[in-house]
């Protein structure tokens, strides 16, 4: 028996003796990948066998992924955590009194105390992820009861230009990586006259080390729907598309179900919330092309073509999807909008530093002890995030390098751990925050290999339109391989540097243009890894 995501509440067949224990178990793909379905099934089975009643609500993830599968039990009105619990450990949890759900259960060795008091959770500022992991993702009632649709209500009370103004004043910048002010994008589309305009949500989260979009779509889909609806009403677009990568089937299923619910409730369709204005949404599936995360390639793909990058101008805001003015924003940008409208631009703006306002859902990944999602105001240093929050490496070895911003992000050594998490501060050190994925490597990492991989990945995923990316990536991988083999390393490293310059300034989009970040940062910060004398002892591997 498997529990599909949509079976939110499981009740054992026998109406039981005593009270009903209320349990919450994540249905998030990452939790499922480590056994959450098996745990939920085992508990439901044990309850049926014992003749007890149990309510299991499948929720999104709290983001503390090292604790998954995490079983939350409501004890005296407070949700206590137990984790990680393997399916095979369920019997022990049951024997400890799971179904009584009283304080005696707190003596269990995996007891974590109240979930919202766990340091990792308590230290966050959850604005965008406020509901993720708390409520049933597909319950619109629960969404509304926890602050949902307040943003839309306020947007409807403002003129469209007023909504755009709020977003501008909040200081929100594109969370997909480029950091372009969201309000300016919206204003451009608002000011461009056209019979048809579109809102496109970029949910092609292909960067390794990132999963915030996925977590949010699976854990709180209505916040994205609400954000896109507000965007549509603000700029005068009646149709929106969410382009989700095919690697995220759970997210696609949740979104489709939530959209159907919103439509039934009159919050999508011809008359949104009785405003006499139309907005509707459609989910489209990608097909495994990383470059489709680039906005113009994504638009080509949405039109049913090869995901080949378009030259800009024209900007998508002027001529985007099907040649019409289009707002194209990342999931996290659109999902930040309901909070901004509900609580006011100033409240959002008051978080953060410099020109990086609000909060960023940071994803701690790779070789890290406490991996997961950590939403916080901009400004925390990289060192605090990796060492204090993340607890260092999972292997217990020293941290050697941290790649921030996905496969096109720079590798930072410990020496740069004082860099605050802020768009400009990372740029000043030849890095980028991108979609805020942080991938940690321990001291066994070979940075020459990582540099070669950056080129290889670019070669696999290049759309082929521009020469620096299409040919440069392959030549780059070959040249690094020569360096690794000890063939004229100085000459070849000079060639790599020159090639990186050409790619950086000559490529049409960020794929070719940013591949030099991981390559050059590896080369600049870890030059010893590119020397054959240093490499020889590893040759046996």
């Amino acid at each position: 028996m498997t529990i599909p995501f949509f079976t939110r509440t499981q009740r054992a067949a026998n109406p039981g003796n005593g009270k009903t224990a209320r349990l919450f178990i994540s249905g998030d793909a990452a939790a499922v990948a480590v056994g959450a379905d098996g745990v939920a099934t085992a508990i439901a089975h044990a309850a049926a066998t014992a003749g007890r009643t149990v309510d299991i609500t499948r929720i999104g993830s709290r983001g503390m992924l090292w604790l998954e599968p995490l079983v939350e039990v409501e004890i005296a009105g407070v949700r206590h955590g137990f984790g990680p619990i393997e399916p095979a450990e369920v019997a022990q949890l049951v024997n400890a009194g799971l179904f009584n759900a009283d304080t005696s259960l707190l003596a269990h060795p995996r007891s974590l105390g109240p979930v919202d008091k766990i340091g990792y959770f308590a230290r966050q500022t959850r604005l965008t992820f406020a509901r993720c992991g708390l409520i049933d993702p597909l319950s619109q009632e629960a969404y509304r009861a926890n602050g949902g649709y307040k943003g839309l209500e306020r947007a409807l009370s403002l003129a469209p230009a007023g909504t755009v103004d709020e977003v501008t004043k909040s200081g929100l910048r594109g969370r997909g990586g480029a950091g372009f002010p969201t309000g300016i994008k919206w204003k451009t589309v608002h000011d461009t006259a056209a019979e048809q305009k579109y809102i496109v949500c970029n949910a092609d989260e292909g960067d390794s080390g990132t999963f915030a979009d996925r977590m949010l779509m699976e854990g709180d889909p209505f916040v994205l729907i609400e954000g896109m609806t507000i965007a549509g009403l603000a700029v005068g677009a009646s149709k929106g598309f969410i382009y989700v990568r095919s690697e995220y089937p759970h997210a696609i299923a949740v979104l489709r179900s939530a959209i159907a619910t919103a439509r039934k409730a009159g919050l999508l369709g011809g008359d949104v919330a009785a405003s006499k204005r139309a907005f509707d949404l459609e989910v489209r599936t990608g097909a495994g092309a990383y470059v489709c995360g680039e906005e113009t390639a994504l638009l080509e793909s949405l039109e049913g073509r090869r995901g080949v990058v378009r030259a800009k101008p024209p900007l998508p805001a002027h001529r985007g999807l099907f040649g019409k003015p289009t707002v194209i924003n990342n999931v996290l940008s659109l999902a930040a909008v309901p909070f901004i409208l509900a609580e006011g631009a100033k409240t959002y703006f008051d978080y953060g530093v410099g020109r990086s306002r609000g909060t960023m859902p940071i994803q701690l990944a790779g070789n890290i002890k406490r991996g997961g999602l950590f939403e916080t105001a901009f400004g925390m240093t990289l060192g605090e995030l990796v060492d204090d929050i993340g607890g260092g490496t999972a292997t217990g070895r020293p941290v050697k390098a941290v790649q921030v911003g996905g496969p096109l992000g720079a590798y930072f050594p410990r020496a740069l751990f004082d860099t605050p998490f802020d768009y400009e501060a990372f740029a000043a050190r030849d890095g980028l925050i991108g979609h805020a994925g942080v991938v940690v490597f321990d001291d066994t990492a070979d940075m020459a290999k990582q540099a070669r991989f950056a080129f290889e990945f670019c070669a696999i995923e290049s759309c082929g339109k521009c020469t620096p990316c299409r040919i440069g990536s392959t030549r780059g991988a070959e040249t690094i391989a020569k360096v690794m083999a000890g063939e004229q390393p100085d000459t070849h490293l000079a060639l790599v540097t020159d090639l990186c310059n050409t790619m950086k300034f000559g490529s049409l989009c960020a794929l070719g243009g940013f591949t030099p970040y991981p390559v050059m940062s590896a080369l600049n910060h870890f030059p010893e890894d590119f020397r054959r004398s240093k490499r020889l002892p590893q040759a046996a591997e």
Partner: protein
Amino acid sequence: MAAIEDTARTIAAEYGNRPDALIEILHAVQAALGYVPEAVVPVLADALNLSRAEVHGVVTFYHDFRREPAGRHVLKMCRAEACQAMGGEALVARAEDRLGIACGSTSADGRITLEPIYCLGLCATAPSAMLDGQLVGRLTVPKLDALLKDAGA
């Protein structure tokens, strides 16, 4: 052959023969047939009023679309950075070794296809893999061996 063509035509019609739905149509064709046979290219071109070159271009651009049937089981192993940081490459090497095939190919008996995937979005529970659509996180040697055993390899 006629069955393949009919399937493609029916699916295209379900999507209103809209050219912008080509990718969704190809996903549906692959779900129905297991791959995108060469024979569907002219059928879809005709149905959507596109050139054969345009349809061929889309089929070959996207990594998801197979032009040959896959093995009975498909094991996708993540080879992106977060999984690399957790020893994912050694596991890929082990799978290749155990199956006697290179990543990106199908075993001679057609039992299993081993493919790379660039990120399943399970980067905090790395390394990760997917066997026939089932996600597996925190992959270890014993877990990998169990997956290969499940796949009969």
